[in-house]
Every structure is written in structure tokens, then in C-alpha cells.
């Protein structure tokens, strides 16, 4: 059967299991849009191509599958750059399809020609230009394979207009991926494995550092069995949140720059760190010279390039987290860490047991209240998509996730504007799930045009704006390190509730603590999208905090007479 390149593209995507494409049309991709109209694929029209990439990313993170974004050449393609980089730094499998000028004029600065493969080379796992219709199906299969295998990442496929328009025989079975052969490394080094087992069985003060790789690997069960076999306390990275239930007593919470003090102290006092699918980001380690000095380290990691990159380890088990954990667990003999676990509980002190909810209403509305109430009202079961800033850290501290892929957030690139579009993508992946956006007044203004996408698609998500009138996280740095010189951080915003109304969305403003729970309840009862504008305390800060480059032991603690207490026990 002869099909055009554009038709082959749509047919291939369908066969690869794609249902939704997030995109924006233009001249160089128009043949594909024409074919899309005749296909079974659902196209979600975004309001900015950055939104399309974040949606595809949110879709991928919520589903564990692959998200697809599409744009035209030139400005359409360059608008995708931030979203591609966001997916790259968090190892998210996104396939981006861009139109390109006809192969006959490539390299001539033709109208809307841009070298998007050149631009995205360092921020994609792989990218490729397709100039022949015969290559379309095979290249797409390769792109999907590459995006999802090993350490996942974004792949960009740039298709020239003539390749979209030309016709060729479509033969799916014959279009098998033809990727270059790879050397198979023997990662199963018995000596290294034995050394790891020895460390596991002799440790007195072990701590697991659980990362995003556990989710990527689908290793949640294997991980839980491993944890219980050794009775190991678990600290999570920001992107690891959800890989292990928050309500498990062995779960300590988040580590790092805004991790709770007892978590960081436990890491600093540990004699063994077991890092699983995490990459020792600088937000996690602080100053490397003082990081976990007394601990030996085991690193379970699929990417060899991560081994000894930031932290030198004593045993590296290179491979898929699930496979490695399943091999390790039967060898665990020691699980007597009771006094160590008790010690960590003591480290928590009374900071953990004070419930912010039981504090008398001082008339102030704190972000922590809002997020803690949201957690209680949704029983920790919603998918929360956060933006970047203080609210993101408060979410990590006060919303306790029990299931994998229920916190979606931009960690590595820290992309403001991520939350709203990513939540739209997550909703398409999990139509039956309750999806909440937790976003700052700054980040929301970066991509709020996607409200129109929500309305056009008639989807139901809930939006909680943590409105502090500041670029809060930057303001906090100015407060701590620049003598409260608030340059360019006070922020004017529109009346978000009225703005929502203008889009045809219900919007409400909340200023008092007593209003929080009722409004969350009524928003949840609605079958439509609702926007809640929470006017919170303006100059509140996230505690504890390890200043950038400082030692993990050197935390800026909550001031003596705290207005807000630390997180409640889940």
C-alpha cells in the first residue's frame, strides 16, 4: 500500500501505541496535520510549543510510557528547546517531531529553516533528520526505542516537507529499527557484587538514597522487598518521591538542600549509603568534601557515566535497578539496625510530631497549611504536578506520596512554567486520576496561556496557585544571602480568579485558613477545572536549607519561634 510520508508518520505513531499528540501546526509540518485529521490520533492544540513538550513530558512521567510533541520548523522548533532540556535532565522519554524545510533547500536559510538537530544535540538523547519518505517508519521506531531504553531521554525527529509529501510503500514489518551495534559490556562483576553484599551485611548505620531510577525501572516492589530484607531507613531525592510509600515507618523523607534535618543528619552519620537510581545531584550532596565522610557507598545505577561522577563509590553495580535489587535481596543477612533506626527517630526529635494543623489560627495563611490540607483532603492519592520554587519544596515536605508517579516536577533543569502544561499531559495519561497543579504566582504567569488548552480539551484538573506576591525562592536567597535586597522579585500578578473566569474557568481567591478546606472540597466536587488563588504569607521561607555549596551538616534551621512547624507524620 502506498502512503505519503505524512500518512506513514501517523500510521506509525498509531502502531507505536500513541493516542495523543501535543502540538502546534505550521507550514513545514502541514502535510502531517492533514494526515492527522484522517487518523485516529487525538491532537491537542497547545498555546505555545514549550507547552507541548511539557505536556508530552508530563504524559510520559505519569504513564511510564512515551509522550509525543509536534511542532513546525523554525520558531515552532526553537520554542521546544526548554521543554526538551527539561526532559533531558530528568531522563524523561519524550519524542519530538518537527517539520523541516524541503531537503532541496536545506542549508540555504530558507523561510523558517533552522538547524534544530544542531541546536538540540546536547539536550537530546539522540536526534535525526529524515529526508526520505522510505526512512519515516523505521526512524520513528528507532526514536521510540531510544527514548525508552536504558536511561530514557528525549529524541527529536526532524522531517523535511518533501519527505512528508512523497509517497512510498508502507511496510511496517519491514521497517525494523536498524541501530548501530553496541558493545555489550559485562556489568556483572562478581567481585564488585560480593563487595557490595559484604558491605550490606556489615553495616551498622545504613541509609538508602532512593532516586527516580527506581520508578524508571519499575522496581518499586523489588525495592520494597530489599528495604524490608535489610530493615534499611530510606531517604528520597525530590524525583524519587513516591517510589516508596511515605506512610512506611522506614521512609525518612526527602534529602538534600531542603530535606528535613534528620534525613541529612542520618546521611552524614551513616556508615553505608546505598544509592539506587539517583545521581548525587549537587542539591542532594551539598559540599562534596564534607559529604557522608564516614560512609562507604554502593551505587546501583544503569548509566556507567554516573559512576564516580560526583561521589566516589566503593561498589558500583551497573544495571537496571530492579534486576540488581532482585539479585541482591537474597544475600541480605543482617537486618538488625533497630538502634540506628531508633537513633534517627530521636534525631527527628519533637519537630516531626508537632502538627501544623493543631497550631492556633494566627490569622496567617501559610503555603504549608494549604499543601498539608490538600494532602489530607485528597488522602495523598492525587497526582500533584508542581512548578519550581518555594511551593515545590513545600509540596515535597508536606504532601506525602504513597505511590510512584504521583509527584511530577522539574528537578534537574528546574523549569518554571512546567506545572500547568505538564499537568495537562498527566491528565491525558491518567484520565481517571485526580490531577492537581501546585504552582507559584511567578511560574504560573509563564505558561498560563495553556488554560485555553484545558478549556478547548474540556479536561478537569485543579489548579492551586500559591500566591505570595514574590518570586519566592529567589526572594528567600536575597533574604538570606543578599541582606534582603529584593531586586526584581516582587511580582505583580493579575487577579487569577478573574483571569480564570475570562477563560471560562471557575476561579476563587482564598485568604483565610478556615477557607482552605471548604474550597478544596468544593473544587474536588466539581467535574470541571477549578483555579484556586491562595494568597499566602509573602515573606515565608523554606526550612531547613543547606546553602548552595555548603556542607549537608550546615543547615539553616527554622528560627526559634517558628510560625510554621515541620511536616506532620504521614
Amino acid at each position, binding site marked *: 500500500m502506498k502512503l505519503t510520508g505524512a500518512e506513514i508518520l501517523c500510521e506509525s505513531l498509531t502502531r507505536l*501505541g500513541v493516542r495523543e499528540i501535543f502540538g502546534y501546526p505550521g507550514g513545514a509540518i502541514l502535510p502531517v496535520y492533514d494526515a492527522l485529521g484522517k487518523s485516529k490520533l487525538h491532537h491537542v492544540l497547545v498555546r505555545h510549543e514549550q507547552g507541548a513538550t511539557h505536556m508530552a513530558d508530563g504524559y510520559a512521567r505519569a504513564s511510564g510510557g512515551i509522550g509525543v510533541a509536534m511542532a513546525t520548523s523554525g520558531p515552532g522548533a526553537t520554542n521546544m528547546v526548554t521543554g526538551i532540556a527539561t526532559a533531558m535532565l530528568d531522563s524523561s522519554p519524550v519524542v519530538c517531531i518537527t517539520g523541516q524545510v524541503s531537503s532541496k533547500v536545506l542549508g540555504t536559510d530558507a523561510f523558517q529553516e533552522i538547524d534544530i538537530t544542531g541546536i538540540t544535540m546536547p539536550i537530546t538523547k539522540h536526534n535525526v533528520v529524515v529526508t526520505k519518505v522510505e526512512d519515516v517508519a523505521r526512524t520513528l521506531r528507532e526514536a521510540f526505542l531510544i527514548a525508552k531504553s536504558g536511561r530514557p531521554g528525549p529524541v527529536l525527529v526532524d522531517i523535511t516537507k518533501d519527505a512528508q509529501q512523497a509517497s512510498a510503500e508502507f511496510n511496517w514489518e519491514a521497517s525494523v529499527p536498524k541501530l548501530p551495534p553496541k558493545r555489550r559490556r559485562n556489568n556483572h562483576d562478581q567481585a564488585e557484587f560480593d563487595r557490595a553484599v559484604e558491605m550490606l551485611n556489615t553495616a551498622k548505620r545504613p541509609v538508602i538514597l532512593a532516586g527516580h531510577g527506581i520508578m524508571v525501572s519499575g522496581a518499586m516492589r523489588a525495592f520494597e522487598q530489599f528495604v524490608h530484607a535489610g530493615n534499611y531507613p530510606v531517604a528520597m531525592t525530590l524525583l524519587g518521591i513516591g517510589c516508596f510509600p511515605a506512610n512506611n515507618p522506614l521512609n525518612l523523607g526527602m534529602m538534600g538542600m531542603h530535606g528535613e534535618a534528620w534525613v541529612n543528619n542520618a546521611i552524614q552519620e551513616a556508615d553505608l549509603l546505598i544509592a539506587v537510581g539517583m545521581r548525587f545531584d549537587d542539591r542532594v550532596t551539598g559540599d562534596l568534601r564534607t559529604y557522608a565522610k564516614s560512609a562507604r557507598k554502593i551505587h546501583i545505577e544503569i548509566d556507567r557515566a554516573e559512576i564516580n561522577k560526583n561521589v566516589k563509590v566503593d561498589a558500583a553495580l551497573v544495571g537496571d535497578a530492579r534486576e540488581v535489587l532482585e539479585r541482591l535481596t537474597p544475600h541480605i543477612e543482617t537486618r538488625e539496625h533497630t538502634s540506628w533506626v531508633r537513633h534517627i527517630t530521636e534525631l527527628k526529635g519533637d519537630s516531626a510530631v508537632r502538627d501544623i494543623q493543631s497550631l492556633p489560627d494566627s490569622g496567617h495563611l501559610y503555603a504549608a497549611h494549604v499543601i498539608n490540607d490538600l494532602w489530607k483532603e485528597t488522602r495523598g492519592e492525587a497526582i500533584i504536578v508542581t512548578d519550581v520554587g518555594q511551593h515545590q519544596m513545600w509540596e515535597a515536605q508536606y504532601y506525602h506520596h504513597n505511590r510512584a508517579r504521583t509527584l511530577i516536577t522539574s528537578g534537574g533543569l528546574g523549569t518554571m512554567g512546567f506545572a500547568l502544561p505538564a499537568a495537562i499531559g498527566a491528565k491525558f495519561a491518567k484520565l481517571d486520576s485526580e490531577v492537581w497543579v501546585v504552582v507559584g504566582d511567578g511560574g504560573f504567569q509563564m505558561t498560563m496561556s495553556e488554560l485555553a488548552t484545558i478549556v478547548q480539551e474540556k479536561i478537569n484538573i485543579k489548579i492551586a496557585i500559591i500566591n505570595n506576591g514574590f518570586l519566592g525562592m529567589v526572594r528567600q536567597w536575597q533574604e538570606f544571602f543578599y541582606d534582603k535586597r529584593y531586586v526584581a522579585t516582587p511580582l505583580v500578578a493579575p487577579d487569577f480568579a478573574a483571569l480564570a473566569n475570562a477563560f471560562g474557568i471557575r476561579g476563587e481567591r482564598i485568604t483565610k485558613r478556615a477557607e482552605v478546606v471548604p474550597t478544596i472540597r468544593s473544587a474536588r466536587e466539581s467535574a470541571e477545572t477549578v483555579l484556586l488563588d491562595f494568597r499566602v504569607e509573602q515573606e515565608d521561607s523554606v526550612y531547613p536549607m543547606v546553602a548552595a555549596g555548603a556542607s549537608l551538616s550546615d543547615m539553616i534551621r527554622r528560627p526559634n519561634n517558628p510560625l510554621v512547624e515541620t511536616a506532620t507524620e504521614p
Partner: protein
Amino acid sequence: MQTLVAYVENKPGVLNRVSSLARRLAINIDSLTVGPTENEEIARMTIVAHTDERGAHRLEASLEKLVDVLLAENVSTRALLERDLALIKVSADQQNRPHLMELIKVFRARVVDVAPESLIIEVSGTVDKIDGLLEVLRPFGVLEMARSGRISMTRGGDLLQPPVSEPPAPNSSPLAQT
């Protein structure tokens, strides 16, 4: 200085990916040579980089993550045969020509072009040998020089061959939906 050998797809853009990666890792490349192998679809690179063992590991592992790189290996600590080729145009008049020829012999170099005012000398060998010859030629006046950059091969039975393709597994495409 660390030496890596890589097999890559012999197609446009691959050199760009490799050099762009080194730039991204902030690793300065001293020399990078690339040429076809006995299999015309595969090219072989020798990369000499200003970095330590840790940097070389990172470069090696990151290179292997590139789809177009079949294999990358840090060979710095192995028994290596290393060769660099140089063409050196040196000014030569009637008086100093005999002295020059003497030096060329000592270094086992060859004269490959003779002109009234100059000679082109071809020399191959280790970097040190070529640097050594260059040092003694300088007083005569080096007019031009071209060097190939280093190529390296592990000695004897220590083979470093490109991997061969396996037949692709049927239905090896992952689905977008899980």
C-alpha cells in the same frame, strides 16, 4: 593526558556529536583523528584528551551513550603502539643541507620534496620523537608544519574490534502506552 579509541558510524554529523560531547564535559581535546576501517560503515577514532582518569571514564561512558558510537575505550593504561605523522617544511640552503640530511637520518625521517630554498620532511613515530625532531629543526627555520594527530592501537593479542550487529528482536519497539 588520556587516550581513547572509539568505533563510530561512518556518517555525517558523528564527529560533531563526539566533539560536542567533549566540549559539554569541559574536556579539552589534544588531538582527534578519524578514518575509515576495513568496514567502510565504521570509522575509528583516536582521541587524546587533557583530563585525568576520572574524566576519561566519564568521556568513555558518555561516548558510548551516543547512538552512533559502537564502542569507546580508555586505553591509556594498556600497552600501546602510538603513531603521529608530520610533514615539516624547513628552509634549507646549500650550506646547511648536509647537516640537515644528517639529522634526518638520525631521526629516521625522509625527505619527500626538494626545492631550491626548502625541503619537506616526512616523519612518523611517537609524539616525543616528532617533537624531538622539530626541536632540532627549529634553528634552520620551520616554514610550515602539518601533523596528523595521534593514532593508537593496543599491542599484540589485546584486540579492540568493533562489535557486530545482532539481528533485531521482533517487535522490539516499546509502546507509548503502558
